[in-house]
């Protein structure tokens, strides 16, 4: 029973591939958004560090992979690794600033770093292409075999496979003693040190790990669309990621998947119906969830499922 439940999202993702062959770019964007939301869940949901600047790492990863491919190294997997490494280092360097003071100050620091990186990329047009975006990104076939095709088949399956692997790695990490210590820090940051938990170190590692995840998500976007725009670094992306996380349910990795899928699909459907008005409906959905659905969509699902099945 439990095993079947764990398979549901992945079976649905594969079914979607066959059922909606003309919607593959949308499906890819869901997979990428899901990975970005998982990264936010690690740092916000589990470690309890709130950030408004996660797009900085997404963008750093996107530009890393994009620039590599633009300058003659289009091998996708090593591109992902490079993006993860650059984002992780950026996370390690900025973590002391973010974790130094209270929650609100940390929030402002993440916001400030995000804005700075956006402006820096905008000004460094010679390298990044500035507002025109990074052109001429040429990505080689995945594993030397699977070419990125016009319909987005490879793009989707590649994104899905990366999401699958990193999702289960995240599952392992949150179930480990390290993950338990993050939940402990999140629950009571003043008591944790009395149990011998080195709070600063643990949070710094979590921040860098979440940064690496966001970096890989950004790299996937760059590689599958063969393009990087300033959008990758935008505040809107950070905010959307948080909305997906809250929508799906904080502190539940499945919630991150569900939230990303629901948000992206709703965005798509509602903005086709009325391009400007969709945020109105999003607002209503968020207020309803905040008032009645603590735990987001995942919390609702848990209530609907038979007892003991949804953990």
């Amino acid at each position, binding site marked *: 029973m439990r095993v079947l439940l764990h398979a549901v999202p992945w079976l649905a993702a594969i079914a979607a591939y066959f059922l909606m062959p003309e919607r593959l770019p949308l499906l890819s964007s869901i997979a990428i958004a899901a990975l970005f939301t998982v990264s936010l869940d690690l740092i916000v949901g589990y470690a309890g560090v709130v950030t408004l600047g996660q797009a900085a790492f997404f963008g750093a990863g996107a530009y890393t992979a994009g620039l590599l491919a633009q300058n003659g190294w289009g091998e996708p997997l090593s591109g992902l690794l490079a993006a993860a490494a650059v984002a992780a280092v950026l996370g390690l360097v900025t973590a002391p600033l973010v974790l130094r003071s209270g929650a609100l100050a940390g929030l402002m620091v993440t916001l400030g770093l995000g804005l700075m990186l956006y402006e820096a990329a905008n000004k460094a047009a010679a390298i990044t292409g500035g507002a025109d975006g990074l052109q001429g990104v040429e990505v080689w076939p995945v594993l030397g075999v699977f070419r990125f095709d016009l319909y987005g088949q490879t793009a989707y399956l590649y994104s899905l496979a990366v999401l699958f692997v990193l999702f289960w790695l995240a599952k*392992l*990490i949150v*179930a*480990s*003693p*390290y*993950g*338990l*210590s993050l*939940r*402990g820090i*999140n*629950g*009571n940051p*003043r*008591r944790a*040190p*009395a*149990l*011998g*938990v*080195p709070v600063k170190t*643990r949070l710094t590692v979590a921040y860098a790990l979440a940064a690496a995840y966001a970096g890989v998500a950004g790299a996937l976007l760059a590689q599958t669309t063969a393009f990087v725009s300033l959008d990758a670094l935008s505040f809107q992306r950070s905010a959307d990621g948080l909305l997906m996380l809250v929508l799906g349910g904080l502190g539940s990795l499945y919630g991150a998947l569900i939230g990303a899928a629901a948000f992206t699909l709703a965005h798509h459907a509602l903005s086709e119906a009325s391009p400007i008005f969709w945020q109105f409906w999003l607002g209503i959905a968020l207020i309803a969830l905040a008032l009645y659905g603590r735990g987001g969509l995942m919390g609702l699902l848990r209530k609907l499922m038979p007892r003991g099945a949804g953990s």
Partner: protein
Amino acid sequence: MSGPALQTQGLTRRFGAFTAVDKVSLSVAAGARHALIGPNGAGKTTFVNLLSGAIPATAGSVALLGEDVTAAPQHARVRRGLARTFQVNQLFAELSPREAVVLAVSERAGAGGTWWRPVSSMPALRREADALLDLVRFPIAGRDGRTGSLAYGRQRLLEIALALAMKPRVLLLDEPAAGVPPAESREVLEAVSALPRDVAVLLIEHDMDLVFRFAERITVLAQGAVLADGEPGAIARDPRVKEAYLGTMEIGHG
């Protein structure tokens, strides 16, 4: 192990002109059952904070297992074998009691940084956590619930189990019965009397019932200084102690 487990010499703490703890010299023997009592404002809490390293001393020294730790920070004292419980519950509301103790055990065992395997694949952690919960008589039924919704007395038991997970040589129990409704206080009392004998316990408590049942030695603090120190019987008969409490509280039961 012949020397005292915990010893202070002339320990003093001033806050401006006010002397909260005044040249207190106290010796807690290895494996002792020692209680520290005193009327409100006697400086008990400040004294515990000096022992645990939460605040620095103005003068005097603290020695733990024969080693001077006066300058050592809190976590270093924990590592050398000094654990404490907190007067106001400081627990992890969203974790289950079992998860919280597993967390404490894994940190003490140096496994807290392990990220490559799930807790569920490390049965030794869970076994030790369960043994600790057994030790404080924490009922099996409540171990997987939310800590935040536990009865107050149960939270006190968990608090003690978390301190024991540090494998302390000296345990400071800061008012374990405070705020516990009478119906649950027996559970806490039983847990305290079942503490392992190789751990020296310093009990700071208002509840005289608990003190006289538990302690083999009592130190009375008044106005920051040691007023009396001795066996429970002698303390109960001491007229100075009675006077310090101004007759507002009955001392002892014989």
